[in-house]
């Protein structure tokens, strides 16, 4: 009950409120909710990467007992509007919720059935007869960038949806005066974070009001509500969207098309319908991090000082008509990593292919940007005979230069990047392991040490889309929150950002408790999201690492409005100046006068019931809403500089691997992370985020790949062949921290959700490369599977075979 002696509740490693229900299996996830008379949905999906749909016959499916409704693309086109893209193509394309006339990737929904149970719906799907005319598929994004290959949309005249060259500073001059230029080509695979709960929704149509209600584990409810209203042709006021507990997100949990399909089925059937992906649908068709190829050229002086950077970047978008080139923009914001690089050129191609749509996946584009940059830095160090740590230390933006604006317009707000790396080397025992490595090599063992460091932004500035579209549709980073003292004096809060495992019920309670002088247990935070009660914006949602840097401002702002009102009411009733009062231990108390004061319950009675006791002109009630806009977001300027993302944390990863020359297998022996995410709001959550995020990086480095064959078929569509790391693959990740608060966020916090996933692949790749370099191997692509290691060893010295 008592306020902690020093510093408040924020910053304490409080065990999580929500964990108490989750460890007992008492969470309420989408599939745990079953409205009365609900029907279950199954989808027919394209077996072809690219095909014309000549005919669909749903007669037999519709006739199956238990089937209530069937929809196809033709009916979707007749009864809904296309899904509005965030980043439109040069020629507008109609992208409906179901494929119309053409299927463009394996797994694309062709038709959908609602039936009394999922098994019956799947039986019905098998009775739908489709006549496909297969077409050649575009699978090679580099070929697409060259203008080669079959076209997904002949109306576009190309599979390239965006190609541009952005130049910042005197790039040609930098390369002309350089002592040397390092040029490399790097490649990244398609992979995804694959939250353990798959994506889905419950949709219900109310014929009486011509309205729709959705329950969904969608991470961006604000945006989805806008799309639903447009596509269904109803005002947003007749839509309701709720989010329950969400079983992991990582950016993957979104697909407005599925909500639309379910809305059409619910309207047709006159009953609520539920759809939840099975795992194969999830892996085949939801969202992949874009694969791609990046050419990096680094201009340097003989002492290792970086003079310029030139990148050519080809992104394999799949059939992404919603947010193509988003990966490119995010890379642009991180392109300099933590380094001082005065001149930067970025040429990018965003290319459609006949594959699963690319989309948001923990770090979007930044893991590849960091992989390419940190591999290049390590190779440059080797060329110059410098230690890889030393080369980095010579090029970091220093603490004295903060806040520092990069040539592309990102603002690094605070931090001490050299200190982060030095702390990581110290904790890792860098000198010790270099000696051990030499000794091991002498006995034929292949140990490698990898260093990778990164910056980690938080909060996306949608104004950056203007670089691609030439016009501004949305901008900035903002979120909304509500805090309310209930009539009984208990406190409730709600946030427009539905968590998917980040513990907001606990952190928001910590923040509100500090503002109102309470214990976090006295603050109840609404689970999930409800568009009819939660305050929200178009920008609301659980994405881009924004909680710590943007959402916190909304919570603090709402709480302070309530605090100020409590103090005004108490001052009036006690006939004392509000400045002489403070909120402490559940009451407004007179400063320096012990327990004298009025409890929240007493003040709530005045605010809600005994309203004649309010100060003159004071509005009854004790509820406040506040929306916070991140102050670092700015529009694009005349030189096309724009912060695509905002507040910057940073991290250094040191990784020790052993490669088995007999199998090509890579074992991670030791892994150290030192990170700086500013003020840590709840260190227990922060450390968990670092572990989990780093594990995503390790999975992408060593195991995970959505591999397509040359015809466009996905070869890895189950967890038997799309391999996720297990408890035997992830080491006991050691975490230390520095804490340089951000001057630009309300609580000094920075983002922490992506910081492991960004440098993780680079750290592991650098370690494997370090283990194999003396054998003539250079790691230029991911994932580093045993098979890949074998091929590299074989190619470097075929006689070893």
């Amino acid at each position: 009950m008592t306020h902690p002696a020093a510093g408040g509740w924020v910053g304490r490693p409080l065990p999580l409120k929500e964990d108490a229900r989750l460890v007992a299996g008492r969470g309420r996830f989408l599939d745990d909710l079953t409205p009365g008379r609900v029907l279950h949905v199954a989808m027919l999906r394209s077996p072809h990467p690219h095909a014309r749909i000549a005919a669909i016959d749903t007669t037999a499916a519709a006739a199956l007992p238990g089937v209530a409704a069937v929809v196809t693309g033709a009916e979707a086109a007749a009864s809904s509007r296309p899904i509005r893209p965030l980043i439109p193509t040069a020629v507008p394309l109609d992208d409906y919720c179901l494929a119309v006339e053409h299927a463009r990737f394996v797994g694309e929904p062709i038709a959908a059935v609602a039936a009394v149970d999922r098994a019956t719906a799947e039986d019905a799907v098998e009775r739908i007869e489709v006549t496909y005319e297969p077409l050649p598929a575009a699978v090679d994004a580099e070929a697409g960038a060259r203008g080669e290959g079959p076209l997904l949309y002949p109306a576009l005249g190309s599979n390239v949806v965006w190609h541009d060259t952005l130049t910042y500073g005197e790039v040609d001059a930098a390369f002309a005066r350089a002592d040397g230029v390092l040029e490399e080509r790097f490649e990244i695979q398609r992979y995804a974070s694959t939250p353990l709960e798959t994506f889905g929704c419950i949709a219900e149509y109310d014929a009486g009001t011509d309205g729709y209600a959705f329950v969904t584990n969608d991470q961006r409810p604000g945006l989805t509500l806008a799309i639903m209203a447009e596509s269904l042709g109803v005002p947003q006021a007749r839509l309701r969207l709720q989010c329950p507990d969400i079983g992991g997100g990582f950016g993957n949990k979104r697909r407005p098309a599925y909500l639309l399909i379910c809305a059409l089925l619910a309207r047709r059937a006159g009953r609520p319908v539920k759809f939840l992906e099975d795992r194969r649908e999830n892996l085949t068709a939801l969202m992949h991090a874009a694969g791609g190829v990046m050419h990096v050229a680094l201009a340097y002086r003989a002492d290792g000082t970086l003079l310029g950077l030139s990148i050519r970047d080809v992104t394999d978008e799949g059939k992404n008509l919603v947010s193509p080139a988003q990966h490119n923009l995010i890379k642009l914001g991180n392109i300099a990593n933590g380094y001082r690089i005065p001149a930067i050129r970025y040429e990018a191609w965003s290319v459609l292919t006949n594959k699963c749509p690319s989309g948001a996946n923990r770090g979007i584009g930044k893991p590849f940007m960091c992989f390419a940059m940190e591999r290049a830095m390590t190779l440059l160090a080797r060329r110059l005979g410098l230690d890889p740590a030393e080369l980095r230390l010579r090029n970091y933006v220093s603490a004295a230069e903060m806040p520092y604006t990069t040539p592309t317009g990102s603002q690094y707000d605070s931090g001490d990047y050299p200190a982060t790396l030095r702390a990581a080397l110290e904790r890792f025992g860098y000198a010790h392991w270099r000696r051990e490595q030499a000794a091991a090599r002498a006995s034929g063992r292949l140990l490698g040490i990898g260093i990778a460091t990164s910056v980690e932004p938080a909060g996306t500035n949608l104004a950056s889309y203007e670089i691609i579209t030439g016009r501004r549709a949305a901008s900035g980073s903002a979120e909304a929150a509500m805090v309310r003292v209930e009539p009984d004096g208990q406190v409730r809060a709600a946030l427009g950002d539905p968590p998917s495992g980040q513990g907001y019920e606990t952190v928001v309670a910590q923040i509100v408790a500090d503002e109102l002088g309470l214990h976090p247990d006295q603050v109840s935070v609404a689970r999930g999201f409800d568009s009819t009660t939660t305050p929200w914006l178009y920008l609301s949602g659980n994405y881009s690492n924004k909680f710590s840097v943007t959402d916190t401002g909304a919570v603090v702002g709402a709480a302070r409005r309530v605090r100020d009102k409590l103090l005004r009411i108490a001052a009036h009733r006690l006939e004392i100046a509000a400045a002489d009062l403070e909120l402490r231990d559940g009451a407004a108390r007179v400063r320096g006068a012990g327990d004298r004061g009025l409890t929240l319950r007493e003040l709530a009675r005045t605010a809600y019931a005994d309203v004649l006791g309010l100060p003159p002109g004071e509005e009854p009630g004790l509820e406040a809403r506040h929306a916070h806009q991140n102050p670092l977001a700015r529009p694009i300027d005349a030189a096309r500089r724009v912060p695509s993302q905002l507040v910057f944390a940073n991290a250094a990863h040191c990784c020790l691997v052993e490669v088995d020359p007999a199998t090509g297998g890579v074992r991670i022996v030791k892994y150290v992370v030192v990170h700086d995410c500013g003020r840590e709001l709840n260190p227990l959550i922060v450390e968990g985020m670092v572990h989990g995020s780093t594990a995503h990086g390790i999975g992408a480095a060593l195991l995970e790949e959505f591999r397509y064959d040359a015809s466009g078929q996905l070869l890895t569509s189950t967890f038997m062949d799309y391999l996720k790391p297990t408890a035997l693959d992830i080491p006991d990740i050691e975490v230390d921290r520095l804490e340089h608060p951000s001057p630009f966020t309300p609580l000094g916090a920075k983002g922490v959700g992506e910081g492991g996933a960004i440098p993780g692949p680079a750290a592991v790749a650098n370690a494997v490369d370090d283990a194999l370099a003396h054998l003539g191997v250079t790691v230029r692509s991911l994932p580093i599977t045993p098979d890949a290691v074998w091929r590299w060893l074989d190619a470097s010295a075929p006689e070893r075979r």
Partner: protein
Amino acid sequence: METRVRLAVNGQAVDRIVDVRRSLSDFLRDDLGLTGTHVGCEHGVCGACTVLVEGQSARSCLLLAVQLDGAAVTTIEGLTPAAGLSPLQEAFRECHGLQCGFCTPGMIVVAHELLAHNAAPTTAEIREALAGNLCMCTGYVNIVRAVSRAARP
């Protein structure tokens, strides 16, 4: 096709007519309302749906309800005390051995089985026992800590 199945779930006798193709996980969740058992992959890899059958861990998505005739099944609900949490569940909470909580019931079932046979496992033994269960959030570090903490009174 339907058939009758009689079994014990969390110590309670259950007697139902079920479709023969109904999985144990669907039976537990949809017919009995025991939604603590989660379904993550439906092909036996992720372990979220793990329950105990006669005290041994089993993937409820790979079993048919009819196969359980005469058996005793324990779910996360059966491992949760009427009031409060079990020491293992408390350890998961104290160590924050979860984030989204979707894999957690399966993890706790497997950890329960491990500790029933090995009261003081090494971290290597814990990792081996958990290796059949996927967690996409935690990187397993805090899960291993939680099981270690529960093992040490």
